[in-house]
């Protein structure tokens, strides 16, 4: 029987000592936990962001994105409102699903900006003074329900101080047909034969009564205020219109800040009759020989 050598016994002892050492290290030094923990810590960044704590983070991100999208939409709406250049545009941008909101300052700017009486037909300047008198008027909200447009003058509690109701159809047919066209009368669709210099037009104007003059031509103060100089005036009949009799438009050409512009205004039916009785406008048919729209009136045309 072979007895084990010292070396053989030593191997066993070393093995046991090693095991004992490992157990001691684990019991007293928690080497396994520390080792695993530190390894996991080292490769932490490679693992996915899972679990409730990260889910909450994602929910916060979703919430923030929603807030940002709302703010962006509101800012766009505000910028869009601020970029409105005319009273007409204010109504044009209005849709049943998209109310328009403008500040008091912007509304007043538009109200007094446009040279015609549209704004004053909507609400009189005296009524505006009254609305403004309680110092509570903050904004104006325009909403459309079906054919009705509501203009609400609201306070800081969003409560309407005054509401004005308008028919969108009426607005469209009459007042909203006012426009500013960038270009000449010809480019705006006025026939060459229906255009005359401003001085000649004024002679016709003088034959009209004071009220008719006021209703036909925009407030001269607007041109003076802006330092615009009127050059020519044109008249055209909207023969393509579905309405009978066809509406008549007056175009006032002037030199604007940078371009030649034409202020296009509807001619009220009663005045157009009176005006057209003095100025004959030919039917715009290419097959017919052009006839002077001013009929017998010769003035300084030649």
């Amino acid at each position: 029987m072979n007895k084990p050598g010292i070396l053989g016994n030593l191997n066993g002892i070393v093995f046991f000592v090693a095991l004992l050492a490992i157990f001691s290290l684990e019991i007293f030094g928690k080497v396994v936990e520390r080792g695993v923990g530190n390894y996991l810590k080292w490769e932490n960044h490679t693992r996915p962001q899972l679990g409730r704590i990260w889910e909450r983070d994602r929910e916060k991100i979703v919430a923030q994105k929603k807030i940002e999208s709302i703010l962006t939409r509101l800012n766009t709406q505000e910028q869009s409102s601020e970029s409105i250049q005319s009273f007409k545009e204010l109504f044009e941008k209005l849709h049943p699903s998209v109310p328009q909101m403008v500040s008091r300052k912007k509304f007043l700017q538009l109200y007094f900006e446009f040279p015609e009486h549209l704004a004053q037909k909507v609400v009189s300047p005296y009524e505006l003074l009254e609305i403004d008198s309680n110092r509570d008027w903050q904004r104006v909200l325009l909403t459309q329900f079906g054919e009705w447009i509501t203009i609400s003058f609201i306070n800081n509690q969003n409560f309407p101080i005054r509401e004005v109701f308008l028919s969108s159809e009426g607005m469209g047919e009459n007042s909203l047909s006012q426009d500013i066209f960038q270009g000449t009368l010809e480019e705006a669709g006025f026939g060459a034969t229906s255009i005359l210099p401003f001085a000649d037009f004024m002679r016709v104007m003088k034959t009209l009564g004071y009220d008719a003059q006021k209703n036909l031509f925009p407030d001269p103060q607007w041109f003076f205020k802006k330092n615009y100089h009127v050059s020519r005036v044109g008249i055209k009949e909207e023969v393509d219109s579905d309405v009978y009799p066809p509406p008549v438009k007056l175009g006032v050409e002037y030199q604007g800040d940078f371009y030649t512009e034409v202020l296009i205004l509807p001619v009220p039916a009663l005045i157009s009759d009176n005006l057209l009785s003095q100025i004959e406008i030919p039917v715009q048919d290419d097959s017919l020989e052009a006839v002077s729209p001013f009929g017998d009136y010769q003035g300084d045309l030649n």
Partner: protein
Amino acid sequence: MKRRLFEKIAFSIFTAVMAVSLLSLVLYLDLKDELPQLPDSLEKINLSLPTEIYSSEGNVIKVLGQRHPVPLDEISPRFTQAMIATEDSRFYSHNGVDHIALARAMVRNLQSMRISQGGSTITQQLSKNLFFSFERKWIRKLKELLIALQMEATFTKDEILEAYCNQVYFGSGAYGVEDASLVYFGKRAKDLTLLQAALLAGLPNSPNSANPFNNFERAMNRTRTVLKRMVRSNFISPIQMEEALETDLELVLRRLQSNPNQYFLQFVIDKLEKEYGKEFVHFGGLKIFTTLDTRLQQYAQQAVTTHMKVLDRRMRPGEDGERLQAAVVALENKTGAIRVLLGGRDFAQSQFNRAVSNNRMAGSSFKPIVYLSAMETLGISPATLMRDEPVVLEISPGKTWEPKNFNETYYGDLVLKRALMKSLNVISAKLVYDITPERVIKTARQMGITSDLGPHLSLALGATGVSPLEMAGAYSVIANLGILNEPYVVERIEDFRGNTLYEHFYFGVQRFSQKSIYPLLDMMRGVVEEGTGSGIRRMGFRHPAGGKTGTTNDYKDAWFDGFTKDISASVWVGYDSNVSMIDRQGRGLTGGSAAAPIWAYFMKKGLQGKSQVNFPVPEGIRFAEIDEETGFIANLSTRKKIRVAIKNEVVLTLPPSTDSVQGFFPSIDPIIPNPQNIEEDVLPEL
């Protein structure tokens, strides 16, 4: 021999160690992709900004996602000691795994062949709470363990303990020790006494069942166990334990039960979640300004609680102990703001919101809509003579309907106003028959009712499901002389920087002309002065008001809907199971006896100290006194006079011996209440 044994043991140990290591490696490789990443800091768990909800008075009435994280030095050491003693007595000496606790748990689990004990350390519990589901699975336990080991290697013991104390759930909606201290004791976590600290430390284990609000005895038993463990861990002496048990716990009253705003708040939260998403509401850090008037809401809750107690005593005990329920909604007429929304007796017991659910029949409270449709369509007026008698109406060829009056009493000839005041079913049925149910539905839509309405003749009796909110909205159109203001609950929403994200604008739409509505308004005032709703006058409500009672078939629903110039309110009472409300005397509960007293109590308290405001009379309306049995202009010989409000163009006729005139009567005698016309319900005092 010894050597062989020695070698065998060594080999076995070696094999076991190798096998465990190999198994661990395989498991780790398998789980690697499912292990979550740890954040850089544990403070990250408390970074969410709370969303605050405000009442119309500007007070915070609810905070969503609110946490009150506190550093460890602002937590009472007694609490951390109690927590360590209870949850993980060797917390400061292990590295995420407590070998002894784990071995003990494993033995017990193997004995029971299921996971009955976790042996989890505080670190493991934190790992579970932050990352994992609450399923008891071996794999989940292993992942939880690995993350706990990583946490121990990454964060200090105090950081782990602080995070645990700040996020653990203590029941009653309280997350974190600071929140729990405020909820249960109304004090800061640093000020907790030993007894309070022990009670709180015992809660995470069973936050609902050992909650002192739900089961005080069980909570105290658990507290004693915690204190004993503190003694065993040498945190306190047995004498200190006894002294602590002698002290007063100073538990505060439960908030949930006394908070009458819960139904309104839940309605707002649900509405916003639906519109903007759950994340926006709970994690947006918003300021939500609502229309709630907490003072009025309190009165509505008081009215319901008080009157329900009276009715509980009066009612037969239900088969399964079911209690009567009630709902109240009040709107501001001028704006449509919902000032009160109470969906039941107690939110803590039932979260079902009866104020907005449209599953209950409106009964006679729907009749004003029928009368308005008829007056608009047929050109009749409150002075029009009708005949109240048993009638058979043909629904379709060969199919008939015989509507019957309440108590099957018929009055013969009488004018329309009196018919509404008496809430006569036959007259209402005749009107719907003449104008068609579709016409009534059209009017109901114009008044803002959105629930499905079946085009049946039974609409005459309100056999259609509507909500108290809809009814209050419809009645506010009458009070507003035809203007519909869409009811709303949110005035404005701001983000945490103060940017406005939403604001409400008033879209008052004139749905009916003023002079079409006013005669109906006057008829409904008659209901309150001399008709089925006159109980509210007997209860001392003096403000000018109109209204209508409603009682459905077999006394399943009782309504009272009414309005003053400024407020419209709707009250519903009934059983959730839709059984009849029959009292001990065998009498059914009606709108007049079950709902009207709540309305009267609420409105009386709500309008206390406010001046009485009359309804403005629009142009084109005149008043006249007529004979209610003939419809002729009243004269000295008229026995039963009634004052009616009619359009100027309505022609009134003098009795046959005189000529027809368009009578105008500037001075009208005050109306004297006629007790004979009041429902015979006994109105209990509140």
